[in-house]
C-alpha cells in the first residue's frame, strides 16, 4: 500500500522493508521509526478520534506529548490493551493494532455526534446543575435522561479486562545532575556537566535525542548544520562513562528534595529484547536538576478550530523533517508568531503547496516574514480565521479582518490542512511541581519560572528563552554551574529571531456556526468559560472545575493559557491577576503497572503465617485475613457448612478439649529494674504486687482515657514480664510503650523487645486440657493448686523450653503453651496426638470468637471503637484503685467521662432465638414511635452452641440500668425486639475456670 503523503525519507524513518499495522481494522504500511501518528498522516489519515462530549471528528493536533485529540487504544494481545495513548508517542512496530476511541459505531459515522445537537445540555457546570437543581426534578432527570446518555457516550477509552501479563520494573538511583529534556538546552547542559566530571542522567521522552534540533534544517551551530552538531554531541556524551542517557523516558513528577519520577517505556515495541519488562519506573534522587523541557505551541482560538486537518504549525514541520510526511497538499498557515513562517518556508521548500500565511498582527515584520514574502508566499496581515468547513476534514477556511463580524468581508480559501500558531508556552510543569514560583512574562504572554526550589534550574525554552542560541547558552551555563565547570560559547547562525504578539481577540463572525474550542480533549469552548464567569465564577480554580477545562488526561497542555486569557478578558482583569491553576504530577499519564511494579498478586502485601499454618492447611482449614496474618478460620469436615463446623468446634471444646493456634498474639518482653513501675504507667492495673509466676488481665488506655488494647501481663521474675497484646495491636502497642518510655519516662530503666514471632502459642482449652498436656510437660506441676488460674510457669514441653500460662479465653480450663517458633509445629502435633484419645478438636478464629462472646469477653476494636472507657465495658475492676497515675487516668475524671448516660457494654437476647443480629445494627427505643431514639449498636452477634440460641453484645446508652428492658433493632422494613441482659451468657460465676 503506497503512502501518498510520504514525500521524503531520512530523519527518523529508517530504510528497509515497510511495517504493517492496523488502525480501526484497516491494514496500513508504515516505516520503522514512525509514530502511529506519522504513519497515519503518511496515508492522509487525519481523522483519528471523536471528542469527549460532542463526539466531533478530531484529528492529530501535535507531534508530541501534548496531544489532546489523537488518543488510541493499543492492543498487544490478551492483557496488553492500553487505552488513552497518544498516537503521537506510540512507536510503530510490525503488527501494531490500534483503535480509535469514543466513537460508535465508527469514526466516520458516529451516532454520538447527535450530542452536538443537545449541546445546551452539556454546557459549563452541567454536572453541578444537574445535581444541584430542584431536587426531585434533578434526580429524575439524572436517572432517566442524563445518566444513560453520559454512560453510553462519555469516557475516554475502555479499561482493559484481562490481567496484565507483563512485568514492570522499578529502579532507584542517585546522580549529581538530572537533566530533563535532550533538546539543544539539555544537550548543552549534559555536555558541560559531563565534561566537568559530574554523574549525569540525561532523559528524554522521545525515542531520539535532539528535541527541536531533529526538525532543524537551516540553522548552524559552530558552523556545522544542526543535525551534524547533534550527532557529534550525542557521540561525545556516549563516550562519557559518567553520563547515563535514557530515551523514551518521561519525567512525570518532580517532588521535594529533587526526587524525580521517570517512566521509561522499555518493551512496548519488542518485549523479547526487554526480558518481558514493559516499563520501568525510575525514582531518581538528584543533587541538582536541570529542566530543559522546551515549550509547547499554543493553538489559535477560532470557530471550527477543531476540524481534522487543523494542526499546530510546528507539528507539520516535525512531520516533514523527521518522518518525510506532508500533512496536506494545500496548507494554510495562521499565526500570531514568526515561528510559523519558518514552517511555511520549510513546507514550500519541500514542494508542499502553501495557500498563504494569515497573520493576526497588523504589520508583521522581520527576517522570517520577509523571507516568506520573498519566497512568494502570500501573507494576509491583520486577518484572522473566521470559520472552517469540511465534514471529516477541513476543506475551506474563511478569512476576515481581525475585528470584523461581517461575513461579507470574508475571503474563502480552500485548504486540506490549517496550521496554527498562537505563540509558545514554556513547559514549566516540573518547575512548578518542585514548588518553584512562576512569574508572568508579558512579552511572550506566558508564565515563566521565577524563584526556583533549591538545586533546580530551568534552561532554554522552558525558561522563556526561545531560539537556538538562547537554549545553548542557558543549557551550557546550567550544566557548568551544577558541575562546577566553566561555560563556553556556541556560535549559531541562520536562526532568525522570532517574536509574536499576544492578546489579539478576533471578533466572532456572524456567519460562524461552530464553537471555538479551548480544551479539545474535554470539549470546552470559549462560550463555556464566558458562561462560567457570567454565572459568578471568579477564581480560575473555580472556572476550571466548573467548565472542566484543563482537567482531561492532557491536563490542558495546549489549552490552559488560552482558557486563562478568555477568563481574564471576561473578568476584565489582567492574566496574572486571575492566577493560575496548580501544576500536578503526572505530566503525562503513568500506567498503574509502572506504579505498582512488582507489588501485585502474591507480592501485593506481605503475608504472615504461623509455624502451625502448614498443619492447618493440611487439615483443610478455611483461612481468614487478620491484618497481614492468615489465620485458620474454621476446620470444616466433608459436607459441613461453616456454621456446622463452628458449632461442632465450640461444643467439642466445651465438652472435652480444643486446640487453637494463638501464635499471632502480640508479645512484648518488658525487662529492667523499673519494668513493674513502667507497666503500672502503661496499663490500668497494679503490678507492683503481682508475684512472679502470676498473670493479670490488663487494659491499656490512651491519654484520653479510652481503651486501646488489652492483654495478659505475666510476671516471670521481679524484673521481667511477658506481655501479650491483641494480634492487630502488637506493633501499635510497642510504639505506644516506646513513645512513653523514650519521651515521658526516659529515666526509667526498662527495655522493650518484640517477641511476637519468637514464640508459637498453642492454646489448649476445655475440661480435659490438663489431661492432654500433662504427659508432654516437664518441670511444671500443672495441678489446680500448684498452677492456679492466671499463673505462668517456665519448664519444658516436649523437651523444649516453654512458658506455660494458665489462662482462658473460652471460660474453660485453659493453658497457653509458648514454645520457640521453630518447635511450634512439632509441639502442636504432639499435643494433637495426645488429644486424639480425648476427643480433641482443632478450632479456628470463628469458634474462638463465639466462645469468648458466650463469656462476654471483650475484643478491643470490635466491641470498642476508641470512645469506650473501662467502666463503659464493665471493667472498672481492672483499674488499680491505689494508683496515683497511669496513662489515661486523669481523663477518667473528666466531666464527659463521669457523666450519666454513657454507652455501656451489655448483652442482648433477641425475642426470636434463631435471629442473629447484624454486627453494627442500630438499637432504638421504639417507645418513642416508629424510629425511636438511637441508643447504641450491636458490636458482636453469633449463634451460641452453648445456649442453643443467638446472642449479641452491644454498646447501649445507660445499658446496665436497662437490664431487663426490651429494645429494638431496626432492619430492612421491620424491627427485632431484644431483651437487655448482663454480657455473660455462659458460666457467669466462672466455676469452670477453677478446676
Amino acid at each position, binding site marked *: 500500500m503506497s503512502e501518498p503523503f510520504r514525500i521524503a525519507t531520512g530523519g527518523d524513518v529508517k530504510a528497509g522493508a515497510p511495517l504493517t499495522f492496523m488502525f480501526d481494522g484497516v491494514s496500513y504500511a508504515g516505516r520503522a521509526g514512525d509514530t502511529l501518528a506519522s504513519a497515519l498522516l503518511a496515508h492522509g489519515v487525519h481523522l483519528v478520534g471523536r471528542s469527549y462530549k460532542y463526539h466531533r471528528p478530531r484529528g492529530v493536533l501535535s507531534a508530541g506529548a501534548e496531544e489532546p485529540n489523537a488518543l488510541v487504544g493499543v492492543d498487544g494481545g490478551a492483557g496488553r490493551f492500553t487505552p488513552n495513548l497518544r498516537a503521537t508517542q506510540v512507536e510503530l512496530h510490525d503488527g501494531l493494532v490500534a483503535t480509535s476511541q469514543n466513537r460508535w459505531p465508527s469514526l466516520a459515522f458516529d451516532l454520538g455526534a447527535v450530542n452536538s445537537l443537545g449541546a445546551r445540555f452539556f454546557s459549563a457546570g452541567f454536572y453541578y446543575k444537574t445535581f444541584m437543581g430542584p431536587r426531585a426534578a434533578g434526580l429524575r432527570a439524572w436517572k432517566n435522561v442524563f445518566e444513560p446518555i453520559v454512560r453510553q457516550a462519555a469516557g475516554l477509552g475502555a479499561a482493559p479486562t484481562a490481567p496484565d501479563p507483563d512485568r514492570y520494573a522499578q529502579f532507584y538511583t542517585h546522580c549529581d545532575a538530572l537533566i530533563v529534556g535532550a533538546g539543544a538546552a539539555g544537550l548543552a547542559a549534559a555536555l558541560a556537566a559531563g565534561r566537568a566530571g559530574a554523574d549525569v542522567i540525561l532523559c528524554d521522552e522521545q525515542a531520539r535525542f535532539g528535541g527541536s534540533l531533529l526538525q532543524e534544517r537551516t540553522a548552524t551551530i559552530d558552523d556545522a548544520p544542526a543535525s551534524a552538531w547533534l550527532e557529534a554531541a550525542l557521540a561525545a556524551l556516549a563516550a562519557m562513562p559518567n553520563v547515563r542517557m535514557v530515551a523514551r523516558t518521561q519525567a512525570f513528577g518532580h517532588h521535594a528534595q529533587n526526587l524525580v519520577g521517570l517512566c521509561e517505556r522499555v518493551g512496548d515495541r519488542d518485549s523479547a529484547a526487554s526480558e518481558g519488562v514493559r516499563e520501568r519506573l525510575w*525514582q531518581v534522587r538528584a543533587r541538582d536538576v536541570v529542566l530543559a523541557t522546551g515549550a509547547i505551541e499554543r493553538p489559535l482560538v477560532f470557530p471550527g478550530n477543531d476540524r481534522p486537518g487543523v494542526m499546530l504549525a510546528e507539528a507539520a514541520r516535525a512531520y516533514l523533517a523527521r518522518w518525510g510526511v506532508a500533512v496536506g497538499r494545500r496548507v494554510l498557515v495562521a499565526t500570531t508568531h514568526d515561528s510559523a513562517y519558518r514552517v511555511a518556508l520549510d513546507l514550500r521548500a519541500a514542494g508542499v503547496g502553501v495557500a498563504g500565511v494569515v497573520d493576526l498582527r497588523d504589520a508583521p515584520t522581520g527576517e522570517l516574514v520577509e523571507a516568506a514574502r520573498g519566497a512568494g508566499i502570500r501573507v494576509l496581515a491583520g486577518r484572522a480565521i473566521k470559520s472552517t468547513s469540511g465534514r471529516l476534514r477541513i476543506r475551506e477556511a474563511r478569512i476576515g479582518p481581525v475585528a470584523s463580524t461581517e461575513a461579507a468581508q470574508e475571503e474563502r480559501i480552500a485548504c486540506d490542512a490549517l496550521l496554527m500558531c498562537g505563540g509558545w508556552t514554556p513547559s514549566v510543569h516540573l518547575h512548578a511541581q518542585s*514548588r518553584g514560583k512562576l512569574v508572568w512574562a508579558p512579552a511572550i504572554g506566558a508564565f515563566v519560572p521565577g524563584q526556583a526550589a533549591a538545586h533546580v534550574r530551568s534552561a532554554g525554552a522552558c525558561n522563556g528563552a526561545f531560539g537556538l542560541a538562547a537554549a545553548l547558552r542557558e543549557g551550557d551555563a546550567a550544566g557548568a554551574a551544577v558541575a562546577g565547570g566553566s561555560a563556553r560559547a556556541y556560535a549559531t547562525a541562520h536562526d532568525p529571531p522570532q517574536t509574536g504578539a499576544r492578546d489579539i481577540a478576533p471578533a466572532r463572525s456572524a456567519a460562524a456556526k461552530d464553537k471555538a474550542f479551548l480544551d479539545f480533549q474535554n470539549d470546552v469552548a470559549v462560550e463555556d468559560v464566558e458562561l462560567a464567569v457570567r454565572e459568578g465564577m471568579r477564581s480560575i480554580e473555580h472556572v476550571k472545575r466548573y467548565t472542566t477545562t484543563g482537567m482531561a488526561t492532557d491536563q490542558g497542555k495546549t489549552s490552559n493559557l488560552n482558557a486563562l486569557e478568555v477568563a481574564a478578558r471576561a473578568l476584565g482583569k489582567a492574566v496574572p491577576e486571575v492566577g493560575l491553576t496548580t501544576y500536578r504530577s503526572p505530566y503525562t499519564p503513568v500506567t498503574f503497572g509502572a506504579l505498582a511494579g512488582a507489588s501485585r498478586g502474591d507480592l501485593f502485601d506481605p503475608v504472615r503465617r504461623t509455624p502451625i499454618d502448614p498443619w492447618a492447611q493440611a487439615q483443610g482449614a478455611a483461612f481468614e485475613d487478620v491484618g497481614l496474618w492468615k489465620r485458620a478460620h474454621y476446620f470444616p469436615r466433608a459436607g459441613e457448612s461453616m456454621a456446622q463446623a463452628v458449632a461442632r468446634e465450640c461444643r467439642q471444646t466445651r465438652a472435652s478439649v480444643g486446640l487453637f493456634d494463638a501464635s499471632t498474639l502480640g508479645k512484648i518482653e518488658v525487662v529492667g529494674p523499673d519494668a513493674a513501675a513502667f507497666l503500672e504507667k502503661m496499663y490500668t492495673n497494679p503490678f507492683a504486687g503481682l508475684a512472679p509466676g502470676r498473670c493479670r488481665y490488663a487494659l491499656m488506655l490512651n*491519654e484520653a482515657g479510652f481503651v486501646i488494647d488489652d492483654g495478659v501481663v505475666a510476671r516471670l521474675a521481679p524484673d521481667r514480664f511477658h506481655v501479650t497484646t491483641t494480634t492487630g495491636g502488637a506493633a501499635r502497642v510497642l*510504639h505506644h510503650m*516506646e513513645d512513653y518510655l523514650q*519521651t515521658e519516662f526516659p529515666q526509667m530503666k526498662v527495655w522493650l523487645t518484640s517477641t511476637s514471632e519468637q514464640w508459637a502459642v498453642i492454646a489448649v482449652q476445655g475440661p480435659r486440657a490438663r489431661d492432654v498436656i500433662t504427659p508432654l510437660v516437664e518441670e511444671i506441676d500443672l495441678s489446680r493448686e500448684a498452677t492456679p488460674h492466671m499463673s505462668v510457669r517456665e519448664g519444658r514441653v516436649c523437651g523444649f523450653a516453654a512458658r506455660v500460662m494458665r489462662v482462658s479465653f473460652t471460660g474453660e480450663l485453659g493453658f497457653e503453651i509458648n514454645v520457640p517458633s521453630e518447635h511450634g509445629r512439632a509441639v502442636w502435633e504432639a499435643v494433637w496426638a495426645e488429644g486424639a484419645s480425648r476427643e480433641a478438636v482443632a478450632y479456628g478464629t470463628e469458634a474462638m470468637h463465639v466462645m469468648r462472646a458466650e463469656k462476654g469477653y471483650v475484643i478491643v476494636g470490635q466491641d470498642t471503637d476508641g470512645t469506650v472507657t473501662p467502666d463503659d465495658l464493665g471493667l472498672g475492676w481492672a483499674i488499680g484503685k491505689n494508683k496515683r*497515675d497511669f496513662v489515661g487516668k*486523669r*481523663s477518667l475524671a473528666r466531666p464527659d467521662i463521669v457523666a450519666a448516660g454513657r454507652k455501656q457494654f451489655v448483652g442482648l437476647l433477641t425475642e426470636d432465638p434463631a435471629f442473629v443480629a447484624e454486627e453494627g445494627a442500630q438499637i432504638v427505643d421504639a417507645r418513642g414511635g416508629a424510629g425511636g431514639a438511637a441508643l447504641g449498636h450491636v458490636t458482636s452477634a453469633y449463634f451460641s452452641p452453648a445456649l442453643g440460641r443467638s446472642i449479641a453484645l452491644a454498646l447501649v446508652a445507660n445499658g446496665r440500668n436497662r437490664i431487663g428492658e426490651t429494645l429494638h433493632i431496626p432492619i430492612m422494613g421491620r424491627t427485632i425486639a431484644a431483651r437487655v441482659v448482663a454480657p455473660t451468657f455462659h458460666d457467669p460465676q466462672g466455676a469452670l475456670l477453677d478446676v
Partner: protein
Amino acid sequence: MLLIHCPYCDAARPELEFRYGGEAHVARPADPATVSDEAWAQYLYFRANPRGLHAERWRHIHGCGRFFNALRDTVSDRFVAVYEAGAPRPDAAETKR
C-alpha cells in the same frame, strides 16, 4: 518522599523509615491528678498547627527506633533542624537561612 536526617543515626533516610509523632514540646504534666479539667483538655487536644516553622516529633521507627524532634517549615516541607528528644527547641533565628 522527603529525606529526613535522623540525629541519632546522623544520616538522611527516606521518609518511609519514619513515623510522624505530632507536635513536639507538649510535655505530659508531672502529676496529672492536680491538673484542672481545662488545662488537661488543652494538653490532650489543643495543638499549634502553624503556617511556617513547626516543632514536631518523629520516630525513626524502621531504623534506630528513637524519637527525635524536628523544626519543619509547613509551607515548603523543608526540615530546618533536627534535634534529640529532650533538647530545647532551637532558636528559629539561628536556623533561618
